[in-house]
């Protein structure tokens, strides 16, 4: 695990280390099984075409969990995620598989975040962040916000 970050270490506009992710058809199948979301929109090409989205799309809730990981990796074990929100504004399409375990060449998504506010409330040291996912073209498909409590050196 990365070194613990403290409230005193961050200022407004501090950027979180980006978390790269590659959505693949394989990952979407694993997510379907782990989350219980078996909508064929996410793994059946003919179904996705028939309902008008063209090809299978990444589950919104999987993108949500990528952003949760962005926050929990950054805040470290002594940090606490208090609030989290995101909205699914644009569709993302997984890479197809080249082998059973490796994807074809293609898009990599970047989960990113930036501190927007730091404050103390009731003795707890809070940090608010804007968070988002950028697709391979750098477009934001999944914006959100998060609030964490960080440990203090004080």
């Amino acid at each position: 695990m990365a070194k613990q970050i403290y409230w005193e270490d961050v200022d407004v506009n501090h950027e979180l280390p980006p978390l790269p992710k590659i959505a693949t058809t394989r990952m979407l199948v694993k997510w379907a099984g782990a989350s219980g979301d078996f909508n064929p929109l996410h793994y059946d090409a003919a179904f996705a075409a028939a309902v008008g989205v063209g090809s299978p799309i990444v589950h919104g809730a999987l993108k949500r969990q990528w952003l949760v990981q962005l926050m929990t990796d950054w805040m470290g074990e002594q940090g606490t995620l208090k609030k989290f929100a995101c909205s699914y504004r644009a569709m993302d399409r997984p890479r197809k598989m080249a082998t059973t375990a490796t994807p074809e060449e293609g898009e990599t998504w970047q989960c990113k975040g930036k501190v927007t506010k730091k404050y103390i409330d009731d003795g707890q040291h809070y940090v608010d962040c804007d968070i988002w996912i950028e697709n391979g073209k750098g477009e934001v498909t999944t914006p959100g916000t998060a609030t964490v409590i960080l440990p203090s050196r004080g």
Partner: protein
Amino acid sequence: MLADEVAEFIGKSIGNIACEVEKGSIKRFADAVEETNPLYWDEEYAEKSRHGSIIAPPGFFGWPVKLPPGLTFQRPTDIFDPPEVAEGMRIALAKAGYANVLDGGIEYEFFQPVKAGDTLTAKSMIKDIRGREGKMGKMAFVIIETVYCNKKDEPVAIARATAIYL
């Protein structure tokens, strides 16, 4: 703006299910996300942490196990009890011209970590339904609020999911 037949569903309860938070299901969830945090599967490591046991990634609330086949293998938040209310809302929305649904997003408030071995109760209600004109024509935003409580009946999290009907 919303038809009365739709608005009357606001405030109704749609779910009350028990979810077991089992180590294997936490591991499978973390693997699907490609999580790297040992708190989610390394028992020895997690016992030495401030949590004292394996925890679930925020956003995982276990798996319903006391349900008949067919109900178990879907998203826990898609299991309705009684089913008539959620179904009635969908029919009312379809009659009002909102036949399709998109997952709009979610917000969470977390009160304490979900630990391996917990059994959570998930109580869901239709918190709000709002009509709006957007780029894609008229839309209805349905907010489903789910409160998750642990065995001691302490809230561990509240989720507010937005379904966009259009």
